């Protein structure tokens, strides 16, 4: 494979994210890499996957490259322009959206997410944007996918604040709190981690990444699946699609600009 068609680390994140979407799924996404992943899935193996946007957009045909959940580029050709309550209540809480993509400043061992505040070394707090629809998505979707850079501070043993529920304090706690079952997949530039009523377990490594890389950059000690897989790089067609049609202006890939 020529270097030209080798995926950059963050491109691989998007490609692996896209693979989490089944054909026919309803998928709730914001903007950024998750939206690129969902659009890529629609353009490849999941043409019948449908996007839901929390602002009230249902099933749009995305025009490159939206930067906001109310960007007109994310509203074209939709089945419905409705409300937050319709999207997050009528679809997500109603149980019709299988997969949600989330981000966050912290993801802990039990896949809980913090997007509210994090402490500074001096003990004061850095105020973050807050939940948005993230808590709702983590509460009601059947599957949550998190695409993130793999940094130690992003993966503490325990979030300083739980904005969105993973498996809370451990196995059984989600059900005890009254939440439905969930499957979490965290895709980073180093590995893929999965959890289902359990702690996050590394199930695959990104090409070139090692177990040591993962251990060095994670704030807890994750389990590793016995037979670790290596994430399969995208074929050139998919990468071309991502680069030339889905984010042609490199809005979310500044590292690709001018290459």
């Amino acid at each position, binding site marked *: 494979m020529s270097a030209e068609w080798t995926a950059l680390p963050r491109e691989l994140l998007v490609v692996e994210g896209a693979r989490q979407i089944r054909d026919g799924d309803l998928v709730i996404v914001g903007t950024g890499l998750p939206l690129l992943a969902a659009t890529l899935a629609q353009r490849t193996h999941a043409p019948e996957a449908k996007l839901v946007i929390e602002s009230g957009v249902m099933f749009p045909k995305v025009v490159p490259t939206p930067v906001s959940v109310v960007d007109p580029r994310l509203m074209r050709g939709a089945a419905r322009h409705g409300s937050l309550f319709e999207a997050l209540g009528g679809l997500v809480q109603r149980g019709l959206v299988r997969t949600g993509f989330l981000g966050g400043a912290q993801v802990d061992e039990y896949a809980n997410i913090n997007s509210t505040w994090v402490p500074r070394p001096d003990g004061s707090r850095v105020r973050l944007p807050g939940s948005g*629809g993230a808590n709702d998505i983590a509460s009601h979707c059947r599957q949550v996918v998190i695409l993130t850079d793999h940094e130690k501070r992003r993966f503490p043993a325990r979030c300083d604040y*739980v904005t969105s529920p993973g498996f809370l304090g451990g196995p059984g706690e989600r059900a005890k709190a009254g939440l439905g079952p969930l499957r979490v997949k965290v895709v980073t530039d180093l590995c893929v981690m999965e959890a289902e009523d359990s702690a996050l377990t590394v199930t695959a490594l990104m090409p070139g990444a090692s177990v040591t890389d993962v251990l060095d950059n994670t704030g807890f000690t994750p389990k590793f699946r016995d037979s670790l897989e290596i994430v399969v790089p995208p074929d050139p067609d998919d990468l071309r699609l991502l680069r030339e049609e889905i984010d042609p202006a490199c809005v979310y890939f500044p590292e690709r600009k001018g290459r």
Partner: protein
Amino acid sequence: MHKLLTAAEAVARHVPAGAVVGMGGQNINRCPMALVHEVIRQGIGGLTVVGCNLSLPLDMLVAAGLVARTEQGTGNLERYGTLFAWRRAVERGEVGAGDHSHLAMATRFAAGAVGVPFLPTRSLLGTDLLADLVSDGVAVESADPWTGRPVVLLRAMTPDVAIIHANRADLAGNVVIEGVTSHEVDMVRAARATIVSAEEVLPAGAFADRPERVTIPEAYVTAVVHQPFGAFPTSVYRAYDFAEPEIKEYQALGRAGDAELREWIGANLGASFDDYLRARDPAGTLRAGLTEQMGRLV
């Protein structure tokens, strides 16, 4: 009985100091900038600002020193960064922030919209978000009486006044919004008064041939303000795109500090929103470009 007022009149009459203000718009779309500028011009302070995503208009109000508290799902501008004035004010403890999920805020507005004291949600369970809402006195953990399963009751949110910007209104106060409506319809129905600024104001009854297309009926609207480009630099679906350079400039100043933002506010707001538009875009070329750009996207 027509409801047309100037922004100055509408804000003076319906936005008292200390009010709970329901903020329309979301992120970079249809924020009621003209009405918010007027609140700043009149220096109406001690406000509690509530909404789902609070963005540019909140940050400006905070920078102007007019906000005591927010209740919100998020405070940010997505790709254009956090709300710097709000973040600093919250971190310094000058502005209290009541964190919700977006569905939780939408649920609280929906309760107010239909006159019930609370509505349930199955969001929030098990999180610190819930614990904080419970200690703020706006959420109660409860159980479904039929299954015993946990459920959260959220107290109705009924703003003193809601301010929104729309595509069109008639003089009686019927409102048509194009594109998504975020949390706005229920927020308006829950509010004690509502000011709507609109790109276009039409004679009363202008929408009566297709009443199912009216987004908000006149029963909920107190005042109508005519303000073309009243959401600038945010977008109005099918009318104009958002003005990225303006938002980036504001965010760069926000990153620099509160003084820089206050200076920008002092230098740019002028005596009216039309003054402001002329100051930012004297020949109207920026606005014409945004209109053209939206035309290509819809």
